[in-house]
C-alpha cells in the first residue's frame, strides 16, 4: 500500500508539472502577445507594460520564473485587474464555488444512489421506468438549459426562490439543482446497472439461502458491492461540477471562481486564465489521487489488478 501511494503521488507531481508547462507554452504561443490591441499603444507605455510583466525576457527565463513562482504558490498578477493577483481572485471566488460544488455532489450522491438501487430492485416495474425516464432527461439536458429552465419556473414565474446572487441558503437551491442534474442522473444509471450486476452474483443467492432476510441481503451485500463504480466516478464528477459551475455561476450571477474564469475568457485576461487553469487542474489531479487511494482502501482487489497490468 505504502509503495503504491508513493508511486501514485510521484505521478501526480509529474502530471501537475506537465500541466503547468503545457499551459505556459500554450499561452505564450498566442501570436502578438496579450497586450496587442487593435489600437496601438504609445511605444513608451508598451515598453513599460512589457517591462512590468517581464515580457522582454527570453522565453526560457520567463518559464523558469513562472515555475519558480508556482512552487512558492504565486500565480502572478492579473493582466486586466490592476493591482490584483490571480491568488486574490482564487481566494475570493473559490470558497463560494467549493461550497456550491460540495452541496451539489452531496445532493447527487444522496438522491442518485438510492434512486439507482430502487430502480434495480424494482427492475422493469413502474418505479424503475419512472426513475429511468428522469435519468435520461438528466443526462440529456445541458446544464445551462437546466439552469435557465429552473430559473424561469421557480424564480420568474412562481417567485419561490431568488433568481440570482448569493448569500442565504435559499440562494443555493436552484444553482445546486442545475449543477447536480447531470451527476444525479448519471449516478442513478450507474448504480442501477451495478446493482443488477451484483444481484446476479452467486454470493447473493448464498446469502439468501442461508436464511438472511431480503433487507439484510440488500444492505449488507448488494449495496456495499454495487457502490464501488460510484467511487471511481467521483473524479470525473468533480471535473464536471467545475466546468458546470462556469455556466451555472454565470446564469445565477454567483461571484464564484467559475464566473471569474469566464469573465477572464471574455476579457482575454491571459494570466488569470493560465493561473485558474493550472489551479483547477492541480486540484482535480489531487482529488483524483485521493479518490484512487480511497478506492484502494475500500476495495483491496484493485491492487492485484494494478500489479498485473
Amino acid at each position: 500500500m505504502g509503495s503504491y501511494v508513493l508511486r501514485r503521488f510521484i505521478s501526480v507531481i509529474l502530471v501537475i508539472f506537465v500541466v503547468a508547462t503545457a499551459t505556459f507554452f500554450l499561452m505564450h504561443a498566442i501570436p502578438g502577445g496579450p497586450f496587442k490591441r487593435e489600437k496601438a499603444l504609445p511605444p513608451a507605455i508598451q515598453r513599460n507594460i512589457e517591462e512590468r510583466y517581464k515580457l522582454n525576457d527570453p522565453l526560457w527565463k520567463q518559464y523558469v520564473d513562472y515555475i519558480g513562482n508556482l512552487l512558492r504558490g504565486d500565480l502572478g498578477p492579473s493582466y486586466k485587474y490592476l493591482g490584483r493577483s490571480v491568488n486574490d481572485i482564487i481566494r475570493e471566488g473559490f470558497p463560494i464555488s467549493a461550497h456550491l460544488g460540495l452541496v451539489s455532489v452531496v445532493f447527487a450522491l444522496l438522491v442518485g444512489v438510492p434512486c439507482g438501487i430502487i430502480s434495480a430492485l424494482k427492475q422493469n416495474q413502474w418505479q424503475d421506468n419512472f426513475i429511468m425516464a428522469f435519468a435520461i432527461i438528466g443526462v440529456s439536458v445541458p446544464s445551462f438549459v437546466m439552469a435557465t429552465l429552473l430559473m424561469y419556473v421557480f424564480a420568474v414565474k412562481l417567485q419561490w426562490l431568488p433568481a440570482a446572487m448569493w448569500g442565504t441558503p435559499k440562494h443555493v437551491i436552484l444553482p445546486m439543482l442545475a449543477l447536480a442534474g447531470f451527476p444525479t442522473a448519471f449516478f442513478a444509471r450507474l448504480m442501477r446497472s451495478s446493482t443488477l450486476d451484483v444481484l446476479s452474483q452467486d454470493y447473493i443467492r448464498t446469502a439468501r439461502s442461508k436464511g438472511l432476510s431480503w433487507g439484510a441481503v440488500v444492505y449488507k451485500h448488494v449495496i456495499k458491492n454495487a457502490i464501488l463504480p460510484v467511487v471511481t466516478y467521483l473524479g470525473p464528477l468533480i471535473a464536471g461540477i467545475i466546468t458546470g459551475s462556469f455556466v451555472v455561476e454565470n446564469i445565477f450571477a454567483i461571484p464564484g471562481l467559475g464566473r471569474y474564469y469566464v469573465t477572464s475568457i471574455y476579457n482575454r485576461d491571459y494570466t488569470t486564465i493560465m493561473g485558474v487553469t493550472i489551479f483547477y487542474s492541480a486540484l482535480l489531479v489531487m482529488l483524483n489521487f485521493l479518490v484512487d487511494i480511497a478506492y484502494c482502501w475500500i476495495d483491496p482487489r484493485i491492487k492485484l489488478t494494478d500489479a498485473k497490468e
Partner: protein
Amino acid sequence: MEYSAEMFKPINKDIDSAEAIVRPSVTYWQDAWRRLKKNRMAMVGLWTIVAILVIAIFGPMVSPYSYSDQNLEEQNQYCSSKHWLGTDDLGRDLLTRIMYGARISLTVGFLASLLNLTVGVIYGGISGFYGGKIDNIMMRIVEVLNAIPMLLYVILLMVILEPGLQNILIALGLVYWLGMARIVRGQVLSLKEQDYVLAARSIGASNWQIITKHLIPNAMGPIIVTATLNIPSAIFTEAFLSFIGLGVNAPMASWGVLASDALQSFRSYPWQLFFPAIAISITMFAFNFLGDGLRDALDPKQRK
C-alpha cells in the same frame, strides 16, 4: 381422441437433407439490426436523428428567410404564422436560425466524432497490437492526458486559436480521442489472443491482413457505440463553448450561440431561449437513446 398407427407416417430419414442449411445464415450486422429494431426507444432515437438531419439539410432551403436577414421592424416577435418560432432581437427568423444551427451543431458532432474515431482507432490499434514496451509507453501517455481535465484545455485551445467552426473541430478532435483509444486497445488486446488470429497467422496472413480482416471488424461493435455516444458529447461541448463566448462567429449561429444570445433578454422573451434549448435537448435524447440501443444490440454479452 384415440391415436392410431395410421395417423403417423415416418419422415424421410435422409441424412443429407437433415444436415442441409435451410435458411441463409444471419450475419452479425443483420442480427444486430434485428435486435435494434426491437428496441423501441432506440428506434425513436434513430428516426428522430433522421428527421433532424432532413430538417437541417432541407429546412433552410425551403425557408423564405435567411439566417442573417435582419428586419428591425419585426424584433422580438412571438410565434406567428409569418415567423413560426418568432424572431430575435434583430428581427431574424428564429426557426430559420435554429435550422441553420442544426447544420452547425450536427456538423460539429459528426466531424468531431469521426476525428476522434480515426485518431483513437489508430492510436489504440497500434498500442494494443504491438503490446509490450510500445503499449506501455503509449498507455502511460494516455494515462497522463486522462488525468488532466480536458474541457479546460479545450477552452484554453479556443482562447489561443480564436473562436470559429474549424478551430472548435481541431480542439475537440485533439482532446477527446482518449476514450476511443482505450476501448480499441482493450478490444485489440483481447482479440489478438483469439484462436482464429493464430489460425490466420499460421496460414501466412500478414499483420496488415490480420488487422484489417480480423481485428477491426470484430472490434467494430464497441467502436460504433463509442462513436455514437461521442456525437452528443461533442454537440454538448460545442454548445457549452458557444455559451461562454468561444463558439462560431456571428452571424452564423449554433444552438449554443442562440441560447447564449437569448439569455440576455430571457425574462422578457423566454421563447428565444426555449426553442434552441429544446432543439439541443431533443438531439441529445435521440443520440443517447440510439447509443444505448446500439450498445445492447452490438454487444449482446453485456446485455442484462
